[in-house]
């Protein structure tokens, strides 16, 4: 019974990761990825590793989505200017 919280968080993590893979648009993938980062931090806390959870929270909830969104924006702009030239 005490493992119920671990099972719930593990299932949630697995579902989030699967959802992140099945999305087609990179921007939407980044949104699911940031949720995955938060859920993964909760999983680490439940497994009694809060130090790992802290770094996962910092990287997963804000930094990785920011990097992905910036690169998506840059590639979209480059694609658009190339279309304009042709």
């Amino acid at each position, binding site marked *: *019974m*005490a493992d*119920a*919280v671990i099972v*719930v*968080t593990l299932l*949630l993590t697995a*579902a*989030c990761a699967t*959802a992140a893979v*099945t*999305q087609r648009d990179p*921007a*939407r993938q*980044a*949104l*699911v990825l*940031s*949720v995955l980062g*938060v*859920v993964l*931090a*909760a999983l680490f*806390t*439940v497994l*009694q590793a*809060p130090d790992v*959870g*802290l770094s996962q*929270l*910092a990287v997963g*909830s*804000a930094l990785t*989505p*920011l990097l992905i*969104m*910036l690169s*998506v*924006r840059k590639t979209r702009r480059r694609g658009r200017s190339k279309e304009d030239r042709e």
Partner: protein
Amino acid sequence: MNGWILAATLALGGGGAAVLWGVTTGPPARRILAQNLATSAVCPALLLLSQGYGRPSYVDLALLLALLGPVGTLVFARLLSDDLAGERPSAWGLTWTAAGLGLAAVVAACAAAGPGRAMVKLLVIGVLLIAGNVIASRALAGGFRRVGGG
């Protein structure tokens, strides 16, 4: 397994399932709202877990999440502003429900911790969580459009 961990399990399971459903389906506006909701569902759960395991240092995770969660949402609101231009996502009922959940968790943890430094820390987390949630929701609803220039 005590009542704190049971409550955290319920918050994680219910909130997590709702967030996952919202973030994988529907228009971009709804997805960003669901991403914002993830912070306000998991942060109270972390507070409850810290009480349940009897380890006050676990509260640091909730503090970091309350700080960084709204930052992540604002990043999306800024960089996806083209997709959000047509529709202004707002779900104030949901926002205030999430804020109420955070408030309930903070008050319960405060009551268990008793007066002292721990209680001040919990109150700071509560203020950060609710203020961040409301600011992110307001930014998504277009309240800061003139300021942000988006």
